[in-house]
């Protein structure tokens, strides 16, 4: 009698476990299908790429702001282009992304995009962005004619290059903002690209694309020292000299005589 009860209970447990396993497998398959859809794949084998978010609802942006397309897998043959444009202070800028010894993360943002606000805010925070060593972050907006100058001047994060270049948007086929492209400097190839609702999400994407967890976890070893102290020191010295009436070229700046115009060999160099 006892043996029969034990067998029945055991059978019930096995059935329950079987149901649980089947449920987990089904859930896993559903997750895989949705991940595939997020990658722009064909979830139903119909040959139509996914255009909706994981929740099944189309990705929405505010009116007049183009929404980002589905996350794309980087084309390993896609060659990176240099960034040529205008800086915030009306300067002419060329930034190399290919054939250099550092990697570049290009963040394509705009001033009118609501989702971009979080990115601007994260970039302005000293602790907002983690980057691997020898990786440079560059914010790329469209040309001034397509942006709000006042808002851009307000949003531009200190200590990060901001370049205005509609040409770069075209070169990288940016579908909308925010959009992030990681470029391998040594090979000049795009390592990964995509979008997200926050830098945190994008950092996860970059970590996956590049295999570098430094986008997610702080790595303080070997990180370059920030130059602010030098710049502040130079600015302070300039201010104090100017306040004392000492202008550039003032003879008092050269107690040992004029600067070395006649450095030996210089005449040969010209």
């Amino acid at each position, binding site marked *: 009698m006892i043996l029969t009860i034990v067998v029945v209970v055991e059978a019930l447990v096995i059935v329950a476990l079987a149901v649980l396993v089947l449920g987990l497998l089904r859930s896993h398959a559903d997750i895989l299908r949705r991940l595939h859809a997020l990658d722009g794949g064909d979830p139903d084998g119909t040959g139509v790429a996914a255009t909706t978010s994981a929740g099944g609802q189309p990705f929405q942006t505010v009116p007049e702001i183009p929404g980002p397309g589905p996350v794309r897998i980087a084309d390993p043959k896609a060659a990176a282009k*240099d960034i*040529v444009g*205008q*800086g*915030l*202070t*009306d*300067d*002419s*800028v*060329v*930034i*190399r992304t*290919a*054939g*250099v*010894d*550092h990697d*570049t993360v290009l963040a394509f943002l705009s001033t009118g995009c609501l989702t971009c606000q979080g990115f601007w805010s994260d970039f302005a925070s000293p602790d907002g962005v983690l980057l691997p060593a020898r990786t*440079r972050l560059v914010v790329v907006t469209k040309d*001034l*004619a397509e942006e709000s*100058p*006042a808002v*851009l*001047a307000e949003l*531009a994060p*200190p*200590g*990060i*290059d901001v370049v205005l270049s509609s040409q770069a948007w075209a070169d990288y086929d940016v579908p909308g903002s925010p959009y992030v492209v990681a470029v391998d400097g040594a090979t000049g190839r795009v390592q990964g690209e995509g979008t997200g609702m926050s830098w945190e999400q994008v950092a996860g994407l970059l970590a996956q694309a590049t295999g570098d967890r430094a986008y997610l976890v702080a790595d303080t070893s070997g990180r*370059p*020292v920030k*130059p*602010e102290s*030098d*710049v502040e*020191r*130079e*600015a302070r010295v*300039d*201010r104090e000299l*100017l306040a004392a009436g000492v202008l*550039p*070229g003032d003879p008092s700046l050269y107690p040992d005589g*004029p*600067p*070395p*115009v006649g*450095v030996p*060999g*210089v*005449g*040969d*160099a*010209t």
Partner: protein
Amino acid sequence: MSASLSGWGISTQLPDGWEGRISLRVTPTGTTHDEAAAVAPSGRRTLRALAGSSAPGAVGWPGEIPNPVVHLANFALPPGRGDFGSGATDRMTEANALIVLFEYGPESVGQPLFASQGLPHTLRPHHFRANALQRQIPGQVGFQHFFTEAGRAFTLFVVLGSTHHAPTLTASCNRTLANTRISPR
């Protein structure tokens, strides 16, 4: 692949691996929205007025008539650099080089300091010395030369990451300088 960079009458063709920026030093002014649409002497719309003193990098003084500053380098130029590369030179490796072209005002033209004519473009390793640096960094060497070209007064300041690589770096700098043109303003 070379890249073109030009502004304020200065143009250059950057060799592979070199990048650059031609800018005017930010002059502290107001920060009203009206100034966002200010027009630079070049005729381009500018953010300079809005950037004001909050912009990174060297900042001038009120009333200053800023002149162009050119930074060319074979490494990633960090934002917030000083006119003569402070903030950038301390990031240089042994294989890096930085070229600065700094223009002075028209009052400097004709002064003895700027008597030399033309932008040098045949530098040699022995021109570089450690004590020519604005701030001495072990291993680095520098070169400074004042000159006039196209009726404009400049100083050329070049920093090499190491004397060991000076021959290669000097040749690379010379290629960059040879592609640089200065036109009358």
